[in-house]
């Protein structure tokens, strides 16, 4: 790979700066397409040995995208330093150049674009104060490179990864350690900076966290009804909060209702019947007369689907009412039984309602109780 670069640089004397850079880039891109199997990042170490003048040229081309590079790349080394305005040592520059160069070979994205250029310049400015010349950092960098792999299938630019790794040189151990501590023990969080975005480790971590949050918000959006209309975290959080609150209140109300219905806490019989509702379980028929009439209605309810009804109580009540329409006769039988039960139950609930209101419960429960009472009236009428 290097010999191509060397040959190209030898011809450069006559061409203009830009043309030289462009030709070099073209060659590198060809090499990219040729070296299709991705080279592992660790190869960067090998190339460090070759680091030298020409590598700097290659790097500067890649980093600056053949952009506004003022000094002639074929000229001295110190020009680069001047231009880069970093005051960094040669070794450091080579180090930062060699590794990103290998990074660029493994990535497959295109390099030339105007926004990329601008971002590169910005990052260069970021990079300069952070660069420190250390042999140790080279090694740390190499380790980091080996760990950093592509996480998402984003085809984002290579130049960003170049400066990512360059920045990571300086933050090196601390950033890496932080990532390792965030991730589970076995593997690391693999992050790649995106085009046109800041690349210091803190903002990267922030971005990872934001992505995690948005991913989970997406799942929640599917789960919570009515979240599709609202966009943005705040609105969705509101919906989620309302939903959780309503579910908790439903639990409260239903347990109250069950307590009201059953004078004692015997639910064994019902549980057997409930098992019928789940198609996996074999039905266990109970000879209890009061419940035989409910069997058909239960089957109808189960026939309406095991889907969870998510709407507030009123909607679900309407559904449970509408379900037994197909089996009216059995339902009429059951409704007579309902009548007897519900007289007592309604009285109890009314007492309860007054009691609870005195206790300062929320109005939600009272609404539900009244709603349920109305629903039961409807049932009786049927």
């Amino acid at each position: 790979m290097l010999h191509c670069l060397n040959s190209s640089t030898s011809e450069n004397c006559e061409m203009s700066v830009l043309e030289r850079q462009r030709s070099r880039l073209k060659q590198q891109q060809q090499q990219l397409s040729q070296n299709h199997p991705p080279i592992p990042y660790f190869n960067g170490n090998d190339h460090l040995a070759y680091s030298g003048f020409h590598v700097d040229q290659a790097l500067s081309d890649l980093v600056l995208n053949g952009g506004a590079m003022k000094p002639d790349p074929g000229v001295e080394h110190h020009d680069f330093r001047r231009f880069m305005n970093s005051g960094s040592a040669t070794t450091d520059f080579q180090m930062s150049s060699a590794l990103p160069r290998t990074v660029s070979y493994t990535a497959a994205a295109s390099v030339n674009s105007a926004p990329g250029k601008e971002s590169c310049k910005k990052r260069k400015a970021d990079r300069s104060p952070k660069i420190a010349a250390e042999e140790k950092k080279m090694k740390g960098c190499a380790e980091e490179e080996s760990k950093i792999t592509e996480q998402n299938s984003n085809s984002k630019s290579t130049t960003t990864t170049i400066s990512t790794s360059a920045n990571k040189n300086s933050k090196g151990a601390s950033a890496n350690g932080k990532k390792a501590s965030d991730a589970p023990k076995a593997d690391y969080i693999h992050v790649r900076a995106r085009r046109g975005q800041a690349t210091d480790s803190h903002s990267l971590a922030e971005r990872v966290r934001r992505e995690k949050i948005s991913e989970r918000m997406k799942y929640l959006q599917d789960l919570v009804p009515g979240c599709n209309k609202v966009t943005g975290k705040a609105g969705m959080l509101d919906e989620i909060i309302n939903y959780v609150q309503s579910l908790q209140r439903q639990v409260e109300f239903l347990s109250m209702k069950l307590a009201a219905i059953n004078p004692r806490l015997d639910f064994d019989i019902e549980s057997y019947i409930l098992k019928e509702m789940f198609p996996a379980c074999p039905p266990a028929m109970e000879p209890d007369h009061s419940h035989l009439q409910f069997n058909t209605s239960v089957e109808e309810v189960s026939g309406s689907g095991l889907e969870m009804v998510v709407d507030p109580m009123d909607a679900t009540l309407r559904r449970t009412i509408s379900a037994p329409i197909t089996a009216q006769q059995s339902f009429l039988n059951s409704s007579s039984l309902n009548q007897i039960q519900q007289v007592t139950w309604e009285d109890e609930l009314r007492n309860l309602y007054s009691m609870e209101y005195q206790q300062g419960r929320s109005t939600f429960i009272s609404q539900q109780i009244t709603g349920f009472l109305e629903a039961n009236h409807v049932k009786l009428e049927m």
Partner: protein
Amino acid sequence: MKARSSLKQEFLEKWRKGLQIGRNDSTILERKDAIKLSADVAIAATRNAATRWRRALLCDVVSKNPTNKHVVEQILGHKLKNTAATTRLTTACRRRILRRGQNYRRRKRNKRSRALRKLVPGGEEMDGVLLLQETLDYIVSLRAQVDVMRRLAAIT
């Protein structure tokens, strides 16, 4: 669908177990509390009881009324770990998490975040990402619980 119904079945089984414990309940409120307790513990004991909100819920249940402990144990099927130890653990976790949050992120926990934390059991000690994750699981479990209870109530 199969996964969901198995969750509900599991919940139902555990709920029944909890309700079978004989209790001397006369008033409707006492009965309602017993039902709700069994239901909550049952739903917290489904799957493998490993997520944070489940543990927090069980700890809360036991700490509120020590007599609930045998309900919990009956439903869980094994002895609950010493609650003092668990609370110590959670405070350590809590401190660690808060410190981490303060140092690295310094985000202001806005109203909504706080509200959600109050709703989800154990939410005070979770950071943003974990909170959403736990909320997700909690919502699924709550839905199953409400569904089963509603069907039961509809039958009886």
